[in-house]
């Protein structure tokens, strides 16, 4: 996915830390002039200020041309705006970015006081909302170079934004599909639950393979069969099994598309450790590390498989990493989706609690059922990972 571009910035200004309300050209030039007067920016640029800029789908990297030490690395998602500003003979490309957490204490103090002053005067002066941010100012050698850089950045944004949007769509489908469709109770008295689900379960339990592996680089088709999963003894148990088998299948399919073979092995190992007694806290932390920021939504899919005793911790963990309530760059924009996520979380957790809300006799057997399925699936995942290793060797 990542397209990388390489452009040379002839000159480079160190970053500024300023409150910026709007960014018309004149305002930016005003800040630059002030910064020069305050000796925060060099008045005259020389060859020693030459820098190289590298673009990827993840970040923009600035490095000194001589020595190539990194000056600055700005994640793409931290960039709010990019502007081309002409200042006499200078062709400036200005990046407005989120406030750098690694700023020096004096700059921090400056930001705090500026922000404080601005906030304090809002109601009196009627000034619009202001925000503290960083400006990264690059001086290009020509208008063409500056416009080329802006164009490259625009393309990177488009790629990143497009992928994030598709990820958002995938998450929405996955979450809607994953939510249990009925109470997972083994002791329902409702006669309508006593439907013969066996046919459905057998239909679902057919082996499924990863056809995309069949001809890719000589890797043989991988498959694992869900038939070793729950042996239905009662009608309501097989109803549980059918739903659980479906959920597990869906989750496995998703993992297969989102994780590399090595990562699947790591996932299997973590699941194994959790099954062997590692704490849910450790499990969550390690999974979060494995999935990273861009795939943390995959944790949502584990929700139905977390035992009742650990579910509260798991839900709290989801909330702290901003998955449960749909926080994040993409989901912040969609109020409607956030509300849907909240209601789903409630209904799902209610569903899960309903599953464990029966009497003591039922809870262990349902827990055993889940335990056995998790055990089966972790064995299958391990086998999947090993198979992929053998085939690629």
């Amino acid at each position, binding site marked *: 996915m990542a397209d990388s571009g390489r452009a040379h910035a002839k000159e480079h200004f160190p970053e500024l830390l300023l409150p910026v309300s709007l960014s018309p050209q004149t305002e930016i030039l005003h800040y630059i002039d002030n910064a020069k007067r305050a000796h925060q920016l060099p008045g005259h640029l020389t060859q020693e200020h030459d820098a190289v800029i590298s673009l990827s789908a993840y970040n923009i990297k600035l490095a000194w041309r001589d020595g190539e030490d990194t000056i600055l690395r700005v994640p793409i998602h931290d960039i709010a705006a990019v502007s081309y500003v002409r200042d006499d003979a200078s062709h400036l490309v200005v990046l407005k970015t989120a406030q750098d957490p690694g700023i020096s204490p004096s700059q921090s103090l400056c930001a705090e006081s500026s922000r404080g002053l601005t906030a304090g005067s809002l109601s009196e002066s009627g000034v619009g909302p202001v925000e503290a941010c960083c400006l990264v100012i690059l001086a290009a050698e020509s208008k063409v170079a500056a416009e080329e850089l802006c164009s490259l950045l625009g393309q990177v944004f488009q790629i990143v934004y497009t992928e994030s949007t598709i990820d958002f769509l995938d998450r929405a*489908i996955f979450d809607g599909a994953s939510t249990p469709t009925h109470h997972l109770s083994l002791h329902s008295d409702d006669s309508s639950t006593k439907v013969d*689900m066996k046919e459905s379960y057998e239909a679902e339990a057919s082996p499924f393979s990863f056809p995309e592996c069949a001809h890719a680089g000589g890797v043989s088709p991988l498959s694992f069969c869900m038939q070793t999963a729950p042996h239905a003894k009662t009608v309501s148990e097989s109803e549980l099994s059918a739903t659980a088998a479906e959920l597990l299948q869906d989750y496995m399919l998703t993992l297969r598309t989102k994780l590399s073979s090595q990562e699947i092995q790591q996932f299997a190992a973590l699941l194994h450790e959790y099954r062997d007694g590692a704490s849910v806290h450790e499990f969550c932390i390690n999974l979060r590390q494995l999935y990273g920021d861009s795939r943390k939504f995959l944790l949502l899919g584990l929700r139905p498989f977390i035992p009742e005793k650990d579910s509260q911790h798991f839900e709290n963990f989801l909330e702290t990493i901003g998955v449960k309530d749909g926080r994040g760059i993409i989901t912040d924009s*969609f109020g*409607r*989706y956030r509300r849907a996520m909240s209601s789903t979380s409630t209904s799902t957790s209610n569903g899960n609690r309903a599953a464990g809300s029966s009497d003591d006799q039922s809870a262990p057997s349902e827990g055993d059922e889940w335990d056995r399925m998790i055990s089966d699936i972790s064995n299958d995942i391990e086998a999947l990972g090993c198979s992929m290793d053998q085939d690629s060797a």
Partner: protein
Amino acid sequence: MRMTMEEMKNEAETTSMVSMPLYAVMYPVFNELERVNLSAAQTLRAAFIKAEKENPGLTQDIIMKILEKKSVEVNFTESLLRMAADDVEEYMIERPEPEFQDLNEKARALKQILSKIPDEINDRVRFLQTIKDIASAIKELLDTVNSVFKKYQYQNRRALEHQKKEFVKYSKSFSDTLKTYFKDGKAINVFISANRLIHQTNLILQTFKTVA
């Protein structure tokens, strides 16, 4: 009237994607005709329904021939998508309970957003916003389906779950189609996939209407 699983499968197969032009294009035409000649319109409607059932795809063939005869150059798939947002009375759930009305509403919302794709697809920023709206609408529809499942116990739950699974499958297919579109730029495939998703949305309503 309760239908068996077998009967429902047959019904779904009969009301396959290829029959979409019948309800998306011809039903509005019959509705208009009813104002002019009620009897004739109803006779035509019944005839088309029967003919389509026996020969899936017949309605589309007839429409294409009419367009050809009149030398009307339209992109049929795109036009079908634009027309597919309208409510199909036969599929609307009549039960007054809020959950079912919510289901009608969520289905309508999703279809309307999908039908806007031809207008948005050529502007990347607007199209991405449309995709986000589609994502939210899919999620809300699925949440509503899940709510109805939880609240009401059905003897033919399997049919409903099967239909939900189909809907999810076509939603995923739509997502895959979009990924391919952003590489190859072929909008027609997005239109086709969107039409399929609209059809699955209608089938969800039809299934709930039949079972409920």
